[in-house]
């Protein structure tokens, strides 16, 4: 059976690089399911949950905003944040969320505001993914 090469890369590291059977990812216009031989597609990634199916097993990752390139045999995800669901530290994410929310109360420049907003989004996404897995 044909497989897809899923690559998830952030500025800090290559988080995921494996051959998978299918990928479900959050596009800006809604969830996308991608199977091998998909037509070439370029889209933007929304913060949320990526699900990679590999030999019957589902792997979940929390991702931030970014870009996705799909070709028939490859899915390349460029994002500013990616973390495997198992590696998410709930307490840490909760802490980060509280800190970011507190920072938003202060007066911030436009650039800083965007940075904090992004940090908040990251922690929220991580929490969502983690809680959904457990629940």
């Amino acid at each position: 059976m044909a497989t897809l090469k899923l690559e998830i890369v952030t500025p800090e590291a290559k988080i995921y690089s494996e051959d998978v059977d299918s990928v479900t990812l959050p596009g800006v216009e809604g969830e996308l399911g991608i199977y091998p031989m998909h037509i070439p597609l370029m889209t933007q990634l929304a913060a949320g949950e990526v699900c990679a199916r590999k030999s019957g097993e589902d792997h979940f990752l929390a991702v931030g905003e970014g870009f996705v390139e799909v070709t028939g045999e490859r899915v390349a995800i460029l994002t500013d944040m990616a973390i495997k669901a198992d590696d998410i530290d709930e307490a840490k994410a909760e802490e980060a969320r509280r800190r970011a929310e507190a920072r938003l109360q202060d007066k911030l420049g436009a650039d800083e505001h965007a940075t904090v907003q992004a940090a908040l989004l990251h922690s929220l996404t991580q929490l969502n993914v983690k809680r959904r897995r457990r629940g």
Partner: protein
Amino acid sequence: MPSTRDIRRRIKSVKSTAQITKAMQMVASAKMRKAQLAALAGRPYAALMNEVLAAATAGAGEFSHPLMEVRPVRKRALILITTDKGLCGALNTNLLREVARVDKGSVAYVCAGKKGAQFIARTKRELAAEFTYRDTPQFAEARAISRFAQELFLKGDVDAVDVAFTNFISTLAQKPEIRQLLPLGEIKAVSADVTGDSAAADLEAAKQEYLFEPAPGEVLGNLLPHYLNYQVYQFLQEAKASEHSARMVAMKNATDNAKQIIKDLTLEYNKLRQANITKELLEITTAQMAMG
């Protein structure tokens, strides 16, 4: 002929210099490890983004973006990434020599790092702006530089933007390089990823029509500026990794040299001391013999 006291004084001063260079070497090597890791970790992202972008611009069909517009070049801008401090060997000198070599007039400089700005002021070149960046480059700092360059280009003040930086190869080797940043139209042919890997071969095969969602304009409109920002960010990290590596090596050499000098001076000092003792003994015995 220096006296023993002179030599002692020199040994002391060389020793304290060696202590300083040794300390700087330690600091640089700790920072170097961090900076190298950061630079290497960023490379896959930069390379993949380059691939994606090259494939996307090739597969976007009719689409064009203001940042991709190729104009006849009347004036260029050069983003010059240097260090803030010296004592890092020939790092800045090599880079600035490279810059001076390609400078054919009508270049506006955008400096990141003090050494570059000093060079521009000294040689009376045109300085468009000066930016600073910290020891661990922040994405926001890179974004500020890249936005400024994009504005210059979009306003039509300059027709091309290059970046001069020191590419990190290994602890012992850093290479000054000048890369074109804008216009983006020419980038797809070269696939100038930071590693210099041969991604070009795959690109030929990837030249197919892409489906864009929501629309080519929207996706590429977001992707292109982000690509430029990230590119500058990666350059900053490469430059930092190079700086700390070069400083580490320079300081190690300085420490080794100081140790050699101390060894030589100590030898000289002991010889002189012995000669003095012999001389004194001789004087005493001659005096005794004369008295007797």
